[in-house]
């Protein structure tokens, strides 16, 4: 209930203690000014008017004006500082969040969902920011006002002060009860925001599908459900908040009423020896109003604090999420891979909602044992969903194995520094992912310090040269975000160029020529053969013709196991799966 998570984030304001302290100081000054005003006013009423002292009136009047001027100076400077600090802290939190997200493994992201990540970076941080700003104004001001008011009230009339003593704790208790009630409701709202974001994400990503299946109505209905629920949850939280003002109002009015009554009582008792002047009662009222004003500010803010606390908790959840896949304590660095790969008793599966964290109920790959020697060219073949992509994605550690060990050059890959490991492996995925920039900048991603010669060599090998050279800007041609200038095949070739330029120790091609026409595909394959003299190459393919003449071929069966591992001829004799595939492609007689 105590906003632990929020306070955790607020600690950051102390990163610049000088500035923050100064801001607090200015706050203090601001509040002092508010407090001295009634004092000065009291003098006018208590002293000047009864004694008809006009000059004192004017003197005090000018003093009040002067104090007001000082007040504005404090306030503006304070605003400047407070806004700067709170915005800086917000910026920092967002940067930290995103940095953390960058470290996430694919599993981490799947677990949290994209919608949640988006909500947390934008919305949750906004909630915290609003409160931060409000806090600077109120969290300092309100208690100071209250303390100042209480002190002055006590100094003015010890007797009347008793009334205040009752009012304040009562209000605080009520506020805490409201907060306790509101917290779970706010949590529900933020969680549903994730759902909303995920729903929207789907809709904008799948615009073509929706139009193809003419399912706009269906999507509308789906969304209406989510939308309506969001409104309902928001209102539910709002109901609790709506109680705040009324409760405070009643208690404050009660307080004022009591002050009048009791004040009158005391005044009546002290008719001969005045316990206090009328001016005192008036000043006391000012102080009461100041105290109550402070309380009201605090109360309203505490309600918003509940909402921010929920957001803070979500932010911290993301920040403290355990990274699935990260470097071990003392990772190996400065190594050069040769490219010997060994799978030893490796099993791997994806998580679904029903699985316990870390386990997979249905293994995609089961008990894989393979050894690939350096500079071998290996084909990988199997039916759809058998696990070909999964197998190769384990090598650059996009995922970690669930059981068993994956060795490269005799070392468990978990012992290598991840970045350096990935730098020496090139994996070309089935779907080309390129980045906005230029053709050159995309290729350079493979090797940041590649020379122009190296870039051109990679282009030639991937048969990208032909379409690059026909462009006006050649290598500096824009790879636009909308990509109208690149067709599917061109993108694949560019991805290949990026992979080649690295001259990796291990090259993995996952069905990466599917969009390339047959003629080019053959040419690329020949080029790969040349490259592979220095590289361990793994080619995931659909066609026997692609893998037929490679050194060895891995055949994966439907159960995620190895059906055969050998040369084309060996497999034709021993592997039923291979035979089936061959049959479907060449139909009938088995060719040699």
């Amino acid at each position, binding site marked *: 209930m105590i906003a632990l998570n929020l306070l955790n984030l607020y600690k950051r304001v102390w990163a610049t203690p000088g500035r923050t302290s100064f801001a607090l100081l200015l706050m203090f000054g601001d509040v002092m*000014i508010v407090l001295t005003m009634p004092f000065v006013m009291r003098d006018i*009423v208590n002293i*000047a008017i009864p004694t008809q002292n*006009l000059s004192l009136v004017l003197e005090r*009047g000018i003093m*009040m*004006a002067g*104090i007001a001027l000082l007040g*504005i100076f404090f306030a503006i400077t304070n*605003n400047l500082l407070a806004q700067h600090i709170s*915005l800086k802290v917000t*910026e920092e939190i967002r*940067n930290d969040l*995103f940095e953390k997200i960058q470290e996430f493994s694919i599993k981490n992201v*799947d677990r949290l969902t994209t919608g949640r990540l*988006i909500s947390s970076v*934008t919305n949750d941080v906004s909630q915290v920011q609003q409160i931060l700003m409000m806090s600077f104004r109120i969290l300092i001001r309100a208690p100071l006002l209250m303390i100042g008011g209480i002190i002055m009230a006590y100094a003015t009339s010890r007797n009347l002060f008793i009334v205040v003593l009752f009012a304040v704790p009562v209000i605080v208790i009520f506020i805490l009860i409201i907060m306790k009630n509101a917290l779970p409701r706010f949590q529900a709202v933020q969680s549903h925001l994730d759902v*909303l974001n*995920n729903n*929207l994400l*789907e809709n904008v*990503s799948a*615009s*073509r599908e929706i139009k*193809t*299946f*003419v399912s706009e109505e269906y999507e*509308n209905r789906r*969304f209406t459900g989510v*939308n309506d629920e969001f409104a309902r949850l928001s209102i539910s939280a*709002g109901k609790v*908040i709506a109680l705040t003002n*009324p409760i405070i*109002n009643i208690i404050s*009015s*009660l307080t004022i*009423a*009591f002050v009048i009554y009791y004040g009158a009582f005391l005044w009546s008792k002290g*008719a001969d020896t005045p316990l206090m002047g*009328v001016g005192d009662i008036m000043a006391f009222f000012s102080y009461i109003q100041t105290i109550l004003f402070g309380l009201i500010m605090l109360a309203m803010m505490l309600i918003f604090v509940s909402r921010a606390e929920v957001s803070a908790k979500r932010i911290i959840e993301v920040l403290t999420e355990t990274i699935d896949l990260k470097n071990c304590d003392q990772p190996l660095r400065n190594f050069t891979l040769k490219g010997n790969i060994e799978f030893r008793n490796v099993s791997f599966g994806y998580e679904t*909602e029903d699985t316990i964290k870390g386990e997979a109920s249905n293994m995609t790959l089961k008990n894989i044992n393979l050894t690939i020697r350096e500079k071998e060219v290996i084909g990988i073949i199997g039916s759809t*969903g058998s696990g070909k*992509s999964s197998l190769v994605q384990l090598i650059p550690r996009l995922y970690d194995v669930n059981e068993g060990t994956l060795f490269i050059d005799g070392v468990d890959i978990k012992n290598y520094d991840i970045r350096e490991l990935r730098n020496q492996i*090139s994996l070309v995925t089935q779907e*080309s*992912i390129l980045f*906005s920039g230029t053709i050159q900048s995309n290729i350079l991603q493979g090797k940041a310090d590649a020379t122009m010669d190296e870039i051109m060599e990679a282009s030639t090998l991937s048969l990208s040269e032909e379409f690059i050279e026909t462009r006006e800007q050649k290598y500096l041609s824009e790879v636009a*975000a*909308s990509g*109208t200038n690149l*067709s599917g095949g061109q993108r694949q070739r560019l991805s290949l160029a990026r992979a080649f330029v690295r001259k990796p120790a291990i090259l993995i091609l996952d069905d990466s020529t599917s*969009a390339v026409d047959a003629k080019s595909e*053959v040419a690329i394959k020949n080029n790969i053969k040349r490259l592979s003299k220095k590289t361990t190459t793994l080619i995931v393919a*659909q*066609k026997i013709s692609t893998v*037929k003449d490679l050194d060895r071929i891995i055949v994966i069966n*439907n159960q995620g196991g190895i059906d055969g591992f050998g040369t084309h001829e060996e497999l034709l004799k021993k592997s039923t799966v291979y035979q089936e*595939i061959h049959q*479907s*492609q060449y139909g009938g007689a088995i060719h040699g």
Partner: protein
Amino acid sequence: MVRFGSGGPQRGRGPMYNIDPNYKVDQKAILKRLWKYLRIYRFGLFFVLLAVIVSAAAMLATPRLIQIAIDQYIDIPTVNMQGVLIIFIAILLIAILNAIMSYIQQLSMTIIANRVAKDLRKDAFDKLQNLPVRYYDANPHGQIMSKLTNDIDAINGALSQAVPQFISSGITIFGALAMMFFTNWALSLVAISTIPIMVGLTIFISKRTSKFFRTQQEKIGALNSVVEENVSGLKAIKLYNQEETVLSTFKKTNRELRKVSFKAQFYTGLMMPLVIFINNLTYAIIVTVGAVLNIRFALVTIGQIQAVVSYSRQFNMPISNLAQLMNIVQAAIAGADRVFHLIDEKSEYENDPISSLVEVDGRVEFKDVNFGYEANKQVLDNVTFWGKPGQVIAIVGPTGSGKTTIINLLTRYYDIDSGDIQIDKKSIYGYDKKSLRSKIGIVLQQTYLFSGTVLENIKYGKEGASIEEVIAAAKLAHVHDIIERLPKGYDTKVKEGGSNFSHGERQLISIARTLLANPMILVLDEATSSVDTRTEAAIQKSMVNLMKGRTSFVIAHRLQTIRNADAILVVKDGKIIERGDHQTLLDLKGFYYEMYQAQFAE
């Protein structure tokens, strides 16, 4: 960052944001339009108004009561305790009334604000469904989403906080003014002398800062986009160690957000101190002048000074509250601006013809079609071909030759520059888009699966399909066995975008989906390229059955897969250079022949 590709414009990312420096936010127009949404709930608003009036009256009564108490019952020779008691009870009763009214007011306002937000979101979403594919290709997805979340959220917040304040402030100010003048007109004149200054200041500052708020909302949308794109391109980022690059893009946008937020908030934040200063000044003047009037001219009593000061506080408080709200209100206006822009986008169904395409035999014809995505870049050049019902037409050619574009035109995702496309001898431009699209089944190169179960995904092809129909379609697509092998079978949940299925599995499910939809015209866009040839062969066999009586276009460059097609169109550089069946083309010894040889030349 760019996503995976097929021919033609991508599911893409346009520039992160579009900010024209000369763009002026029309605050008045936006407020008027927001009012249209609020108007629906005017009954509730009236309720709020009533509650506020009662509340305000109650609030105003209290200082008067205090004044009476002091002047008439306390500041007299013998204190009148009975009178004070009456005042006590009066204050209490008023407080209770005030509390009830306050609750009603706040609750109603929360409900209204959330409903307005809901309505806005619905309108925006409706519009999204009607926007052409082009819009999604050109705008970052994160920005689109931000309009329905962050921007509308800003409006919601402002409505629930600002509207009640506006109403109550208005009434309080009016009431306080009235009471003040009733108490002592001379002093009151002094009290209101500073109002015009404050109003002028508010208007001035809000005009100046509106563009900062607009930019702020854009940047928030941009952050949304970076996160979304980061997740969608995660594999490539990791494989190529691009984490640092992406991070610095984020940090840059983040920094820009901070800077513009500071500008926006600072200038608006100036209002508060200024208003308080003016308040204090006014306060000082009232008391000083009041004292003078009392001493010199006996025009005011002490009680009256107290009352006027109290009322002055009462009506200055709302004004300073309003100043505080300016930040929220400005952000809401900026958000509303963006949402309204979205809602005002042209629907692709705007000039849709009324006639529906009902019965379709399936004769498809392209007549002299010319098209380019951009002005000077022609993609299709005088393309003419036709397909009769029941025929399987294969379209082959090198990448970038225009094959995918043909689909884009047939489904009217894009419209031709010249020529015509006809179905059953009637131009497709004479029919409404939805009925047209429902008659064409497409299996795309990339497939998107929805979150939900596998069953729901396949059912997407035909709403209300029975489970038998679903299984039949799955069997035809040869994915039934694969699904049965999953731990929960058809009830297995599909993760975002289908990431828990392999590429090939996604395509098979997508084929099942299309089969269920049972369209008369089928277009397969390199769909089966990621499916192993074993499964592909099986699918083809059942497809033969399915394709009976239907017109099918298969766009591929796996010559093997289209060997049995009725007719083959060879497309190169946007033109059809050869056509005929497999053997005829081989005999031509032209381009097709060369491509074929290459395939089997190993």
